[in-house]
């Protein structure tokens, strides 16, 4: 019998396939470029993956709920500006780290008010907010870069505990916390029942509105945490910040096996999807493909995965409905 879709970290076919793809891509790129296998490049890939790991975790929850947020890139921009100003005001690095998720959670609540309370379809509501937030970033930056930020946060996140960088620990903890919430608290079944069919969830007594608002807030907080990581790695904030984050996150999450139709998710899949995407982007860059082509590759990947999967899952839906009637 098919098992419940709540087996978030159990390794299924999808996760093995992604692992295989990661290894295959690594072999191909190390043949193509001697620089690919160096420690320096591995560090680059890891560093480039951190923000996407966190934002992708939030996007996993949103897609599993049958929702989406296309404004996360610019949300990260606003949160990064808040973190940058905290650093410029000589706030302690540990507090500055928290400024990101707090700002993100606040913005996530605003998104929830528009999408959930305002009953606007998520894709339209967050597209509208994208426009509003972009103006916000422009107004706050005034067309200039916030650069030369103090190094305190950078040092904090690269400090190690038992040999593991704090940045990696924080990401691990974020995944563990979300996994626990999904697997060990009512949040998991509630979220997935909404993603399966919101009306049925409501009839079953799931507090649909509360769960939807909470999920936008959690996603906002995770994207805000990504902003703290961004500021720590680049120590500047510029107008184009986060412009490909939503595309990258949706691509990585869908690649990871979370259903764009809602009702099914895999946290391990998301993490592997992020790694695969970043390896592809890095490898292509090393092979001399200009970085302007990266969104093209990501977009093509997203479209291919959906094209391959959707007819199958639609057939599944039809079969499900057929069996009910």
């Amino acid at each position, binding site marked *: 019998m098919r098992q419940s879709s709540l087996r978030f970290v159990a390794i299924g076919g999808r996760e093995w396939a992604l692992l295989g793809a990661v290894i295959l891509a690594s072999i191909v790129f190390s043949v193509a470029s001697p620089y690919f296998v160096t420690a320096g490049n591995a560090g680059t890939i890891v560093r480039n993956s951190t923000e996407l790991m966190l934002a992708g975790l939030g996007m996993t929850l949103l897609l599993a709920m049958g929702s989406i947020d296309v404004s996360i890139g610019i949300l990260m921009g606003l949160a990064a500006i808040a973190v940058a100003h905290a650093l410029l005001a000589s706030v302690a690095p540990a507090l500055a780290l928290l400024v990101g998720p707090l700002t993100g959670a606040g913005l996530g609540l605003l998104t929830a008010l528009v999408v959930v309370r305002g009953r606007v379809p998520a894709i339209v509501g967050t597209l509208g907010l994208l426009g509003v937030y972009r103006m916000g970033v422009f107004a706050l930056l005034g067309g200039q870069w916030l650069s030369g930020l103090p190094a305190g946060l950078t040092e904090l996140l690269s400090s190690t505990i038992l040999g593991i960088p704090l940045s990696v620990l924080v990401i691990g903890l974020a995944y563990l916390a979300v996994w626990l919430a999904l697997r060990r608290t009512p949040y998991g079944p509630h979220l997935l029942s909404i993603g*399966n069919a919101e009306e049925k969830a409501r009839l079953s007594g799931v507090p649909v509105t509360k769960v939807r608002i909470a999920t936008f807030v959690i996603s906002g907080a995770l994207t805000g945490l990504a902003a703290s990581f961004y500021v720590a790695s680049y120590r500047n904030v510029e107008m184009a910040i986060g412009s490909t984050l939503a595309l990258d996150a949706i691509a990585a999450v869908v690649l990871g096996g979370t259903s764009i139709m809602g009702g099914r998710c895999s946290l391990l899949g998301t993490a592997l999807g992020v790694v695969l995407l970043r390896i592809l982007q890095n490898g292509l860059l090393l092979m001399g493909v200009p970085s302007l082509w990266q969104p093209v590759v990501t977009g093509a990947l997203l479209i291919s995965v959906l094209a391959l999967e959707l007819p199958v899952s639609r057939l599944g839906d039809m079969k499900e409905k057929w069996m009910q*009637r």
Partner: protein
Amino acid sequence: MTVPFLRATGITKRFGALTALRDVDLDINGGEVLALLGDNGAGKSTFIKILAGAHPQSDGELLVEGQPVEFSSPKDAASSGIATIFQELALSENLSISENVFLGRELKRSVLGIPFLRRKAMRERVDGLLHELDAHISDPEAAVGSLSGGQRQAVAICRALNLNAKLVIMDEPTAALAVAETRKVLELTRRLAGRGCAVVLISHNIADVFEVADRMVVFRRGRKVAERRKEDTTPEEIVSLITGAHPDVRALEQNNR
């Protein structure tokens, strides 16, 4: 005279200009299977959705054990002991049986303020219920999407039992089922009534209704047009009440014109 478990008086429901239900009075008693019959669009589903708290009536009153109640959500109805198995079942196919049985009212224990699920307790409870119903489902962790129509009905009934419901409402539970599974579900309705539950059953199958129901109520164009005890009527009479060929219905509809 004992107080009925549920008494509906003057229930009316309007959807904009359309009046789906008009002035319905009905008593529902514990230990009794009550069948609601009527043509498509007669208002049966609308009536039970009001009892289930899925939408409010436009007019009229509901009394549970003599006390007036107002339901603003299925949760309200559930806390009054009313569980509804909707025509569309309202199960989440992507979740397991035990997750479905407890969906929206999970067993939890609070650790540092975090509501952790009591998964083992829930699994055992569901195992017990499935056994009690003799549902032939071995694994409470199986996804509901992998079950047959009759097994899904059993899961939905487990949900109702788990709620300690005093009234279980079933909207066309056998419409999609094969003969053997239909038998099983009808048996379940009798077993529920045997436990002292009130059961309201919507069905189009007159033979099924005569097999399990103690009382029958016929709806037509949003009105309750007849109420019969099983021993006082025949399948032929019920059919003529549903189609409107019965003289009583003709007279009623003449008057209302």
